[in-house]
């Protein structure tokens, strides 16, 4: 039996195996939650329904629904910064 040596074609991570979670803190009032919908058909309707449910069930001042410009594109840095400034918690969701 002869053997051959081959190189692994798969991605091999070189970064740290684990990271530490950012410190959690209790948000001060008024608490704002942002729900991001991915802008596919019915996503806004579905995620708005979820937002209504959160508004009814949680002691928050507001739940805002934010629409992405395209499902396949990530938020740009300015958009992410804007959401981070105005929100205490951001939830992403999708519909398709």
């Amino acid at each position: 039996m002869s053997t051959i040596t081959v190189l692994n074609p798969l991605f091999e991570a070189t970064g740290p195996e684990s990271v530490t979670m950012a410190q959690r803190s209790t948000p001060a009032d008024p608490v704002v939650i942002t729900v991001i919908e991915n802008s596919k058909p019915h996503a806004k309707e579905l995620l708005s329904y979820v937002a209504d449910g959160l508004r009814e069930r949680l002691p928050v001042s507001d739940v805002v629904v934010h629409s992405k410009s395209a499902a396949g594109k990530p938020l740009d840095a300015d958009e992410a910064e804007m959401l981070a400034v105005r929100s205490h918690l951001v939830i992403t969701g999708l519909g398709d």
Partner: protein
Amino acid sequence: MATRIDVEEHDAQEEFFRQGWTDGLPVVPPTPERVAAMLDHAGVAADVVVGTVPERSRDITAEKAAINAVMAGCAPIHFPVVLAAITAMCDPAFGCHTAVTSTGGAALCLAVSGPELGAYGFNATRNALGPGHRANATVGRAVRLVAMNVLGARSTELDGSSLGHPGKYTMLVAEEPPPEGWTTLREDLGHGLDDTTVTVFASEGSHQVANQLNGTPEGVLATFAAAMTNPATYGVGKKHQVLLVLGYEHRTILAEGGWTRDAIREHLAEASRVTPDHLEAGGIVMEHTTQNDMTPDADGKLATVRGPDDVFLIAAGSPGAGWSAYIPTWAPVLHSVAATRRVMPAGAGLPSN
């Protein structure tokens, strides 16, 4: 650097299948010597990052590109084309993450344009989109294997294709010298006549366009416009891009009829505008509150392409009866636009444009 793995030679292919490294077809074993030959030919160090897909936190190194190019069956002379294609694929405007994830099942379709494509072994004439030529088959396959093995674009991971299509194994069209007086694809895209370029499209499958009895430019263009306005194609009326492979008879009729490439693109951009009625007759529902706003323009129509620049023309194919091909991108430009890079000469490293 890539991990070295020892496998029994007689069982190597079965081991590659067990590891999930292939597209379902056998591959060439990526030995260190074969991989080094790829890197040496291109003049790129193994650890150089060819491209990054940030949504997946994945870098594609030259070594991983070379390993997958070996597996696809490429020869070292093909590797600079593979590197240029990967660089284009990682252009943020191309939207690689979405293109290789979407349920729409896009291929990574490559269009190669250059003065010496024969030196690479590319076939641009008979059976231009079919099998039989190593360069055509393996360069496209290498890019797909990189997507599968490095980016995780496989059905068990992040490739969500509902159906996919055969072009997802490999899909490449090489440019035949166009009729006298016409520019080339690479010139249309702002490159020089002496450059070799590769353009990557996230595409649906290739649709044959038949017009065998109408010898007029207007008739040929009407058939292309008909192909471009099929309501069953997702991007029609939603601003996508199209690659038109102009077969021998059709390009000859158009060129001899005095049509320039610019005039063809302008004509088809206009002729592919559609009314909501046209789409609704095909069962399509208009979207108004989603990412695809399908509110008609002042003329009551929707643009299928934003303008002439989203109609890409490439000459290919041998004399026959009157065949061309229409290759639409799988989604609107909101998600992905074609990206082009120059293929570097041997030993010259990565492309910068």
